[in-house]
């Protein structure tokens, strides 16, 4: 933090080597020991699809899947993710064909977003639910999304999109 070479180039110490698998790609990185995963994704890997709304785990917008589990990336240190498999919104569509995941398709077709800041966290949280439970009730969808705040108040349409996506997935549409 204190070793700055004149001319603006900066050498930062207290860095730790970490290996992360993000969206299927393996990254060997040197990261600051106190950096949260969200900052590493956004600032070191340029994956700005992970949005930060509150920075303290209260809103769900920065949710990513770590080994399939939805986790707020603002409350997770990057060094904790050593060797783990991380999925962000950028990695949800088919990496080869670019085909959207059924959740993404449903959110596009039925306008499941307004400003779009909560969208990545909502879709990834819903993916974790649908991977566990392919035929959820409305109450189960609401419970799963209880920690995802949408300031645009789009909860009704979000519920609808998750139910539609679940139906698409059960109907044999590509199951990611």
């Amino acid at each position, binding site marked *: 933090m204190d070793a700055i070479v004149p001319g603006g180039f900066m050498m930062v110490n207290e860095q730790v080597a970490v290996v992360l698998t993000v969206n299927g790609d393996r990254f060997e990185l040197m990261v600051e020991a106190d950096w949260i995963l969200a900052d590493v994704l956004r600032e070191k890997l340029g994956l700005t699809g992970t949005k930060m709304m509150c*920075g303290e785990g209260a809103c769900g917008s920065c949710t990513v899947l770590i080994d399939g589990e939805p986790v707020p990336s603002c409350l997770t240190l990057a060094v904790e993710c050593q060797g783990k498999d991380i999925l962000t919104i950028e990695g949800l569509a088919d990496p080869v064909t670019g085909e959207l995941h059924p959740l993404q398709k449903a959110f596009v077709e039925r306008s499941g977003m307004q400003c779009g800041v909560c969208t990545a966290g909502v879709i990834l949280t819903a993916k974790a639910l649908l991977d566990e439970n392919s035929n959820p009730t409305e109450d189960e969808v609401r419970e799963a999304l209880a920690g995802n705040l949408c300031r645009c108040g789009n909860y009704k*349409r979000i519920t609808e999109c998750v139910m539609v996506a679940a139906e698409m997935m059960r109907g044999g549409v590509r199951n990611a």
Partner: protein
Amino acid sequence: MPEEFSVLGKSLPRNDALEKVTGQAKHVADIALPGMLYAKFLRSPHAHAKIVKIDTTRAEALSGVRGALTHMNVPKVHPKRKFEYLLDETVHYAGEEVAVVAAETKEIAEEALTLIEVKYEELPAVFDAEEAMKPGAPLVHPEYGTNLFHGTSEQPVPRCGSDGWLRLEDGDVDKGFAEADYILEGIYETPMQHNCSPMPRSVVCQWNGDKLTCWADTQNPMYAWQDLAKCLGKPQSSVRLIVDYPVGCYGGKEPEKIAVLVALLAKKTGRPVKAVFTREEDFIATHHRTNYKAYEKIGVKKDGTISAMSHRMITNAGRDCTRFWRVPACSAAHTCGHLYRWQNFKWEGCQVMTNIPDHNSFNGFGDSEAGFCVERLVDEAAEKIGMDPVEFRLKNCARPGDRAINMDTVMVGSATSHDRSLEAMKGPIEWGVFGTDYQLEECLRRAAEKAHWKEKWKGWHTPMEVNGAKRRGIGIAIGTHITAYRRYAATVKMNHDGTANVLSSATEMGQGCSTAMAQVVAEALGLHYDDVSIQFADTAATPAGFGNVGSGGTSSAITAAKYAADDARQQLFAIAAAMLRADSEDLASADRRIYVKGQSERGVSIAEVCFRAYQITGTAVNPPPETIVDEKTGKQIYDHAGAVTIAEVEVDTETGQLDVLRITTAHDCGRAINPIIVENQIDLSVTQGNGWVRSEEYIVDESTGVVINPNLLDYKIMTILDMPKHGDLYEIVVESPCAWGPFGAKGMSETAITTQAPAIANAIYNAIGVRVKGAHLTPEKILEALAK
């Protein structure tokens, strides 16, 4: 709808949906430029203090710090306000910026803030509006001589008296009350609410020689840009403001002085500089809805006629007077002026400055506050004469042809000063009328039908259902708000392949303006929806427009785009007419072709016409509002929407727990350009209206003026579980084309926020038999009302 449309009126996918579901939508906070520095702000811990010493020497000596600004080394200017400078030697609220540092990393910038030495001399402060009005109260701006804002030479409020009160009176109020069979009175309060945008304020500035590029997250690009140029002393042509994907603004998002300070730091350091507020900073140093107190009186006759109304309001503006008079002006003109057909009304209001953070517009501003007061007392009036509350509102609510005004009639705002002279503003109020688009009556009928009002209404303070301590009740409220139709410009640039780019200084902040604009322009030109690409605010390219304010996106921005598309179509037709040896009057366009009406095979592709013409560019500026007149009476048609909400609630009388089980909201919109987006916009207002009174409490400490819950754990916005389930939330979209908008469409959404709180409050009364008159409808307040 009688007309046949190919693109309009369809729930097409949003044109920003793909970017948003794949994480490609880039916000200002996502921008990273080579060599970029990070700015952090030092804020005052005191609500009112003089800075007697400020020293950044140690901070600037920290390795990695590249520059610092304090009031000592910035120009003494401010984008808008009379009494505030970029950085001031006096701070007026706890959280005001006192210094800003740019450094190689956020962490270094934060550490540098701890090394800035500041010595404050505390000054007396005042936080409550009514306290601030008393003689001898501390003055927020001593040089102004009063805490009651009544205008300045730069920002006049011509109708306002020098005592700080604005008074409007119409008809004979004394006579109206004398003729009343009953007079009802109430004192009501409505709470503050923070806009709480999902993305805190963010700005990036980069200089290229003497030219500045600024990326800012705002809903008012043109004003932000003009203010920036003015403060920097640069011509507008040398300052470029770009607004991509601004995020959920809800009325209050402007970069204001932050953009100027970041631009100055970028100039000073010779590097690009980025500033992104933390959530805490967003809470303490941006804007919120004011709190509002009203002394309300209604006279009613036994036959259900409201014979008189008076409304005396006081609102706490905080340290700021930039948003001068918007809240009182909407209260006076809309909810108190013309929501009902009361011919005798008196309105008095004042806006008081205190040492709390700034206020600004929040969805439905003025009408949400006034509506929450008026609609609670109107309900009591209906009860007093024993009339069904739906019937009472049907009898009294305003209809097309009834008199109407708008906020601009009451105040002079920056957006209207182009159109109206100050002298004209001092004269008597000139009433205009509602157009046939104003469908409050139809909203009432359809909401009552959809909510099964007749079956569910069991009479006054009679629960629909009782289960032990739990009681269910139903309630209704109506509301009105502006859908700002104002001057606005747009350009439609045709391309050689027959596609079109629309240039507009509007913004896409989530409301769907970009999608709706593309649908309208495609329809007007005869193109496919995805042939039209929208370029929003980039001041180097997009023409004048006031951004998206007061539900003006559809009413103003898309109206301009429609006129510009019409202009382009006329040019296309003129060339096609020569190519087809036909009269341009006989041409039509559809499916990317221009053809002779009735002979669809005799045509030419739009691409070919564009190529032949080399360049076709349509431009337009909306006609001024006063030219939108009723043919019969010659009176101006005003730009409003109406909404109605019916709420069903369950109250636990032991715990005060409130569950909102079902909400039905009807909203007129002229014409739904994209019905699914219209419904989403209604849901936005429904949810924020619920949060306003049910869970969101913006708490300012009474003794220090410090915001004590500046985070999303303690400031609670509605979650999915707080809102009714999918099948219990109804949106009713009432269509009846307006006189000014594109294909008759007008702005919508905000009006639905004005009806939520009073509908829920009135439902609570019918459930438990006690009226809650305070600001919040929380379990504590409900228990207080039950005196438990």
